[in-house]
């Protein structure tokens, strides 16, 4: 059976403008969450005044025309794509055998609302012609497709905060189905907009720890009070093992299996017993011919919400049983906030790096773990992972009851 190799990594996050800087900051347990300096926080009376914004602004990296032709969500995806593609050695591949799968959870919210402001203030004649190509949810996928010249298909499977992981699952299937030899896949989000913050705030989904932004994202801590908005993008290069080996590519890890389920329970709340989440993890392992006993590390979805964190912890316990005591669980949203559609891809890269370096990154801000937590949570400093063959899982769940688990194995 074809194996799917990972040969290139790229990202831009609140912790750093690329993979090396983000990974270093993550191992150091730094926070990328800060007080917002935008005047709209006070102007519109936002109850939450902080977020995890990208450490390197896109305008520092892209040209002015690139900035003007892309929504910030696509800008970040392109920055991550360029890093990942170069990191993979800019593979020479028949364009008909090259695919793209990139999605975002929210899409071009800045473009849409800027156009709406223009319409109201200046009239229809001033609305720019590129508004639709910039706001459409497939825009990041399309710009990545154009960037690398991918003609095997470009997809944008949208599933809220599972989007980035589901895009990687889509890329995996494109290779297994024989549609492509190489797929550039991942997720992106740039929705730190007052409307998004106000809307998540209205759901009471966001932490309101305005006096301590860096301490606000605290998955599994007893005082957690909601997630922290983040932004950024993660992109990986997937290849069939045969293609990667034939061109002598460096293989970081393998994407051994994917599991996708849906809860059919509630538009925003996860099913309380975490059955769909556990089943997604089980399917990811089964599709890769792996057993729960092989799992050495999990990067949890864990967003720091009161309800969500423990549902996932219970799902992990139900899947792994006593082996959960020996599985290193990391909740990296504690450091960068929740990147929504970007989260699944960025956190997948952290799993891949963890497997490569045999270091599980820390969860910060946990001063008192939830007493019901029955998993081995990596706190404050990285922990060594076992040598030999290991499995690392990335979990991503999205509003709508979308559950996506990705199982990675060492090279």
């Amino acid at each position, binding site marked *: 059976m074809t194996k799917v190799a990972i040969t290139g990594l790229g990202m831009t996050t609140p912790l750093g403008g690329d993979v090396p800087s983000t990974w270093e900051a993550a191992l150091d347990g730094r926070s990328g969450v800060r007080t917002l300096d935008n005047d709209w926080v006070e102007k519109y009376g936002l109850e939450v005044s902080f977020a995890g914004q990208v450490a390197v602004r896109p305008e520092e990296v892209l*040209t*002015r*025309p*690139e900035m*003007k*032709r892309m929504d910030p969500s696509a800008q970040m995806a392109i920055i991550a794509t360029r890093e990942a593609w170069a990191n993979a050695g800019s593979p020479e591949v028949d364009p008909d055998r090259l695919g793209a799968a990139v999605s975002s959870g929210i899409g071009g919210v800045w473009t849409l609302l800027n156009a709406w402001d223009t319409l109201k203030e*200046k009239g229809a*004649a*001033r*609305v*720019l*012609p*590129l508004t639709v*190509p910039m706001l459409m949810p497939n825009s990041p996928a399309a710009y990545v497709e154009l960037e690398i010249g991918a003609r095997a298909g470009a997809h944008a499977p949208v599933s809220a905060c599972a989007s980035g992981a589901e895009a990687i699952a889509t890329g995996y299937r494109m290779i297994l189905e024989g549609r492509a030899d190489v797929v550039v896949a991942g997720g992106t989000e740039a929705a730190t907009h007052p409307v998004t913050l106000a809307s998540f705030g209205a759901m009471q989904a966001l932490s309101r720890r305005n006096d301590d932004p860096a301490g606000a994202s605290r998955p599994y801590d007893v005082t957690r009070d909601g997630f922290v908005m983040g932004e950024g993008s993660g992109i990986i290069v997937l290849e069939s093992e045969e293609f990667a080996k034939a061109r002598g590519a460096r293989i970081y890890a393998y994407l051994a299996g994917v599991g996708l389920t849906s809860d059919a329970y509630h538009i925003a709340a996860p099913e309380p017993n975490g059955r769909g989440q556990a089943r997604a993890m089980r399917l990811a392992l089964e599709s890769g011919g792996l057993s729960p006993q092989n799992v050495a590390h999990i990067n949890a979805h864990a967003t720091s919400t009161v309800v969500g964190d423990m549902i996932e912890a219970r799902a992990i316990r139900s899947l792994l049983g006593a082996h959960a005591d020996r599985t290193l669980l990391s909740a990296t949203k504690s450091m960068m906030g929740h990147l929504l559609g970007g989260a699944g891809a960025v956190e997948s890269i952290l799993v891949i790096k963890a497997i490569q370096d045999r270091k599980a990154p820390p969860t910060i801000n946990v001063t008192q773990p939830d007493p019901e937590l029955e998993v081995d949570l990596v706190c404050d400093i990285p922990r060594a992972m076992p040598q030999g063959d290991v499995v690392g899982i990335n979990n991503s769940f999205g509003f709508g009851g979308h559950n996506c688990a990705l199982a990675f194995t060492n090279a």
Partner: protein
Amino acid sequence: MALSEKEVLAGLAEIVAEETGVDAAEVVGDKSFTDDLDIDSLSMMTIVTLAEEKFDVRIPDEEVKNLVTVGDAVAYITGAQS
């Protein structure tokens, strides 16, 4: 006060450079937007929309196809002022 052709050209070159990445020095009288500057129709419409705002003129959609060269656009905008 109406701008001179030279001033319109400078302002137009700024928009074209900003939107497309074409060097502003390349945006001169006899250059064709499509053939010489490689500007596609969507970008051309963006330039027209921004130029209408910058120079406070109206460029009807049916007029845009006649603006083949930079000089055509400069002449039209200069004449359309007030």
